[in-house]
């Protein structure tokens, strides 16, 4: 069974729809006993980091999520919340990935923030990107980015190079939205389901 952590994030409907298109039914839940039954867990996220962390605190999930043993896929804000700290709302996060989340700097006239649209990646390694070429674009929309670290499995470039995918043990995460990234996104979700 695939579960989506339901903590009021904005893209839950999109993530569920993307799995339904693959004929996979999912359970939306924030109950620990149900999450512990899942074979795989998706941790989505769209919205403001401070508000989202507060939802996780209210649902008593802050200590629980980092201890999950099954494959977990963080998406967008879900990925950022798995990092150590974010400048958005200046909050401490779940501390799975040893990196920090920063606001995009405006280095040049003409730099647009948020980073919104389709961008390519250099997948360094990882089963998540099997069969997906670096010239294939994913859809991004974010104003903050995770700094590169040793857990970075794909990088992208917008104003600065940043981590577009991270992995540590059973924790996987993408800054882009696979659920909105047409065919490459669908392939990535399938790869996650196969883990």
């Amino acid at each position, binding site marked *: 069974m695939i579960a989506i952590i339901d903590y009021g994030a904005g893209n839950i409907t999109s993530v569920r729809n993307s799995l339904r298109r693959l004929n996979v039914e999912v359970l939306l839940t924030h109950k620990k006993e149900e999450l512990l039954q899942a074979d795989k867990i998706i941790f989505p996220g769209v919205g403001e980091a401070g508000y989202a962390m507060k939802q996780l605190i209210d649902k008593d999930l802050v200590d629980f999520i980092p201890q999950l043993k099954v494959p977990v896929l963080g998406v967008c804000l879900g990925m950022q919340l798995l990092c150590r700290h974010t400048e958005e709302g200046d909050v401490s996060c779940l501390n799975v990935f040893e990196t920090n989340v920063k606001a995009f700097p405006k280095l040049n006239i003409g730099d647009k923030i*948020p980073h919104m649209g389709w961008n390519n990646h250099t997948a360094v390694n990882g089963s998540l990107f099997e069969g997906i070429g670096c010239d294939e674009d994913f859809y991004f929309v974010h104003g903050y980015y995770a700094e590169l670290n040793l857990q970075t499995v794909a990088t992208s470039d917008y104003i600065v190079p940043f981590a577009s995918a991270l992995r540590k043990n059973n924790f996987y995460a993408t800054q882009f939205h696979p659920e909105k990234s047409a*065919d490459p996104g669908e392939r990535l979700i399938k790869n996650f389901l196969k883990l």
Partner: protein
Amino acid sequence: MLKKRIIPCLDIKDGQTVKGVQFEGLRFAGDPIELAKKYVLQGADELVFLDITATIEKRATLVELVKRIAAEINIPFTVGGGIATVEDAAACIAAGADKVAINSAAVRRPELISDIASRFGSQCVVLAMDVKPFDGEWKVVIQSGKEPTEWSAVNWAKEVEKLGAGEILLTSMLGDGSKKGFSLAFTEVIASAVSIPVIASGGAGSANDFYELFSQTQASAGLAASLFHFDELSIPDLKNDLKNKNIAIR
């Protein structure tokens, strides 16, 4: 590298895709879901759905349509047309829209922008502005272009950015449906005045119009409707043409 986006726009009336010239004289262009699926297969980067007859009674119908679109397509899409409250926006987002476009209601009540942005994030808020030149000055018009406002286009663009809009959908009413090209100089004035992405709309008539848009302005995306609906220009042909001219395209 971030790519320039090609965005087909579907104007919806009573559940059907329609297209007019300068918002008048509507032609039917088919079932929105079928059209949307076709555009996704052809490589559209995003879609915009504008309900041009949105009234309170029709709102429920629009939400149902949004649910069907969200179930079928796997690229981002924006829904607009008559969104006047946070609740309107919430209904569309809950149904699966990635972004909502607000227009007249934001001019009447600018705090609507910050209200939606603070609840759902700036990335959800597309500020649609329709503009027309009056004695050489580009001004914002509302109510499908029928009602002039006091806002100059540049000041309104800066204001909506401050209020938390994540993107501006800029429609030149001079160009809308004319197929004479985007209003390039004006688009650049707006795109260089703000730090958020600008989608240029109104006037696209050929692949070269998009080339001029992306090579002469900082617009992040180009939007067109009838050009695509009536197969005058296909998205794959347009994208190949732009790629051949070294524009960053998916």
